[in-house]
């Protein structure tokens, strides 16, 4: 996409220079392009240029039936496809007035929490890689692989899973599902300790992240940040608690929050979240109710006219679906409220006055996925 540069090379001060970071940059996590105005290596201001991955998903939604559209949401945040699917299916269910049966909700919760762990693992690996620690990424992928194997066994796909269907599940859990999940859970906490051993107390890691990219709670709220970014700033808010969905109201878990809103806090928050997810999965796996796995909603979905907004706590923040129905088989309007997009907006504010190296750290700590930013 040949976007013409919009900020012309204005007359710069003696030490100012414009540096273009992305879209082909090793650490902008995809095709993000950040235009940095630098004073030496210090960032004066920045501008995000996005849209390189824009595929018009919302427009596509208007020309597909509800069921046909479900695989598309997997491709927005492609590292947390299960979560996307959960949000979409629940939104449509709400639009229909239907509700998935308990067993489906339990399985959904387990898979979504596993997906959250997988997403955070990917984040941790790449974030550490951005800050120059190259080993955690391999450890993280080792555990992520286990999760993806469970997904693969469950629905045949690893990345863009399309695991859930509107109204519940398509597949019953496979034989040994519970054992696989338990086996994963058994090792997982010690593995998280392993990552933390490499990073949490590491002087260089602390120097690189503490006090970097500070976002105050007020700013975070004003800028609409959600998910770990918001919680890292000390706002104890989690949609799983605020508006419980799936089966989250049945489980005990803590909402980790940070204190200073810096990169280190967001790191700690996500590390804690992985432990909490592990806790939820352990509770859920022991109490999966039996029963049907799908609600009776009919083959042709024709939700009555009206609209619904439903959001879930995706790994990256509040993932919302706003669907307007005109009574036909296709959504009249389908809006995806992408957490990455809104969180990315905070970047400029966070990196002003920092150095180029911090830009990378801050982009990493926001945990964006460009597929979701651009949709």
């Amino acid at each position, binding site marked *: 996409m040949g976007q013409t*540069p919009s900020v012309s*090379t204005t007359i710069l001060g003696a*030490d100012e*220079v414009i540096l273009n970071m*992305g*879209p*082909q*940059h090793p650490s902008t996590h995809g095709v993000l392009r950040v235009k940095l105005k630098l004073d*030496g290596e210090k960032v004066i201001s920045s501008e995000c240029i996005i849209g390189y991955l824009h595929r018009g998903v919302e427009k596509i939604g208007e020309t597909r039936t509800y069921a046909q559209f479900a695989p598309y949401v997997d491709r927005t945040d492609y590292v947390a496809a299960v979560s996307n699917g959960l949000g979409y299916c629940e939104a449509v269910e709400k639009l229909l007035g239907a509700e998935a049966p308990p067993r489906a909700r339990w399985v959904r919760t387990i898979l979504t929490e596993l997906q959250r762990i997988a997403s955070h693992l990917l984040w941790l690996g790449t974030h550490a890689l951005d800050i120059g620690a190259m080993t955690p990424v391999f450890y993280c992928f080792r555990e992520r692989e286990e999760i993806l194997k469970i997904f693969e066994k469950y629905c045949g796909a690893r990345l863009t899973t399309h695991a859930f269907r509107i109204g519940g599940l398509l597949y019953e859990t496979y034989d040994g599902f519970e054992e696989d999940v338990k086996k994963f859970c058994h090792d997982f906490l010690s593995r998280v300790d392993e990552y933390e051993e490499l990073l949490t107390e590491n002087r260089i890691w602390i120097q690189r992240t503490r006090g970097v990219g500070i976002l105050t709670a007020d700013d975070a709220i004003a800028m609409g940040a959600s998910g770990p970014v918001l919680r890292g700033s000390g706002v104890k808010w989690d949609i799983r608690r605020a508006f419980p969905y799936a089966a989250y109201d049945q489980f005990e878990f803590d909402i980790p929050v940070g204190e200073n809103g810096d990169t280190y806090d967001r790191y700690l928050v996500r590390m804690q979240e992985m432990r909490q997810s592990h806790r939820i999965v352990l509770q859920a796996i022991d109490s999966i109710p039996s029963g049907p796995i799908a609600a009776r909603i009919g083959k042709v979905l024709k939700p009555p006219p009206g609209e619904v907004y439903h959001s879930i706590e995706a790994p990256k923040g509040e993932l919302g679906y706003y669907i307007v129905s005109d009574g036909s088989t296709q959504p009249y309007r389908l809006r995806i409220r992408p957490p990455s997009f809104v969180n990315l907006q905070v970047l400029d504010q966070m990196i002003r006055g920092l150095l180029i190296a911090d830009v990378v750290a801050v982009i990493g700590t926001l945990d964006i996925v460009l597929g979701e930013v651009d949709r």
Partner: protein
Amino acid sequence: MPENYVPILMFGVIAFLFPVVTLWFASLLRPDSRDVGFRRKPYECGVPPEGDARGRFGVRFYIIAILFVIFDVETIFLFPWAVQYKALGLFGLVEMLVFLGILIVGYIWLYKKGALEWV
């Protein structure tokens, strides 16, 4: 005495010729470069670069270079001292202390002035 240096020169020449010869040799082996599309554009993360890259970068780099030159010269004075240290003894130590002391004063001044701060 200078004949001891000839092997260094030889080594240098060989080390310098190694890239030259290999590059020339490689140019015989490899297929011709096809200059199509954007492949010869400077890397700017996938977008056409704006302005001239040989632009201006922070003056801090320059201060580092200045300080380096100064300290480089200082170490040059230290080498003969270190070699002759046994012969010079206490007197040499005092001399060097005065010498270093003056520069340490400068160093403290730099420190207070903030010239050693990067940002």
